[in-house]
């Protein structure tokens, strides 16, 4: 099963990267994710490990994952260590100044599960796809709102400095 979702966010690539690479924020924008806990000494970076779970149908599926690609601020990929086999990736690209294309991909499956596995993957695909679409929507909202707040704060600070 492979699912993907993409969007363009009105924010610089570094701002988007800061959110998608931060394990503390995963639960606040990743749809369907019920757990994302740091399991390694280093919270971020190549080799960082997390225990994650994603609600799919009647089960929470996931396990221990490890970051296997870490190329700030563009590429972040993980693969599963335990639990159901999965590979995931965040792919960020700057498309214009202050505009970033964010894409998330997730591939998962159980090798050797036969016809039932094939059917289950077909049924799970739209569920996971829905989660990923919601994830990029929530990411957009989170990043753009955060940016608006920061800009407003900067304007306020500038005004008060000007008045002072």
């Amino acid at each position: 099963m492979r699912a993907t979702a993409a969007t363009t966010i009105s924010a610089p690539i570094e701002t988007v990267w800061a959110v998608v690479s931060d394990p503390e924020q995963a639960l606040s924008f990743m749809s369907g994710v019920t757990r994302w806990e740091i399991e390694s000494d280093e919270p971020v970076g190549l080799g960082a490990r997390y225990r994650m779970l994603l609600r799919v149908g009647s089960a929470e599926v996931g396990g221990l994952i490890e970051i296997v690609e870490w190329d700030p601020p563009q590429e972040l990929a993980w693969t599963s260590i335990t639990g159901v086999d999965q590979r995931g990736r965040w792919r960020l690209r700057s498309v214009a100044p202050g505009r970033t294309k964010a894409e998330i991909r997730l591939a998962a499956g159980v090798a050797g599960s036969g016809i039932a596995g094939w059917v289950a993957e077909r049924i799970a695909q739209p569920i996971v796809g829905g989660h990923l679409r919601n994830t990029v929507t929530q990411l957009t909202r989170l990043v753009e709102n955060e940016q608006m707040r920061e800009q407003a704060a900067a304007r306020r600070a500038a005004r008060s400095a000007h008045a002072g």
Partner: protein
Amino acid sequence: MAHSGVAGTADTNGQVDSDDERGRADGTRSSTDGGSASSGSGGGGVGPALVSRALRGVARQVQSRIPRADLDERDPDFIRERLPLMWLAASLWYRGEVRGLGNIPDDGPVLMVGNHSGGNMTPDTVVFTLAFNTYFGVERSFYQLAHNLVLSMPGLGSLRRFGTVAASPANARKALQAGAALLVYPGGDYEVHRPFWERNRIDFDGRKGFIRLALQENVPIVPVVSIGGHETALFLTRGEGLARLLALDRVFRLKVLPVSLAVPWGLNVGDMLGHIPLPAKITIETLPPIDLKAEFGPEPDVDEIYDHLIRLMQDTLDALAEERRLPVIG
């Protein structure tokens, strides 16, 4: 639906209170039980003697088929490969919903105590087994206690690869000492065949062996309450009288011969061939762990713990029943 994955759903009437434990509790009963099979029916002639010999022969056959608890038979790769099939059954057929799995301690031995529903197909077991295996990963040791008869049935051998072991205090202890999570249904065959109108009632039939086990092994108990499993057929009676009449209790350790209305049989006596469960919505609530010695003192009273646990699980089941609008539909 007779493939191995659904065999995983088929009956895990686990019960810790085995005959040998009861034998210890009330003196010599277990040692005299064998004799009563012949002396009890020995009042008249050749016929009854033959019958009792035949019964003992069948009992020996069944006993010899009961596998010893070899925890090593659990096969994580086998379980992983069957997860998609279980996921299909749990998600599409039963619309399963499992809450509070985070209440189960992340590692170490734990005794999960569930109420048991749905006759020999035990649909709540497939939903919970799937949820546990995906939540903690098949890498975590997880065993389920099942009725002897289930494990000695031809064709259900694959259950052992799922981590199902014959219900006995010795097997349960072995699993917990190995640091595994263990699922037990103290109500066993008695609870799983209760009539439909008692579907929202926790009924362990006074079986408390699991509490003594948790105390001896000093492991927490996690109550697991499920609803919906008993709406998969119309269960009419346990048929205890019928079971006694046919000496099933002596031969198979079966105290019941349930009668139900079930697909595709119509009137279903014994439920030995299983049935097609109705697609009832199953909701399972996992409660916070109970550290028995911390909550009930260093010398806890088993009866007090039992009453507390039943009340707690019944309250949870009542709350789940309140959420439900219609049987089957949920």
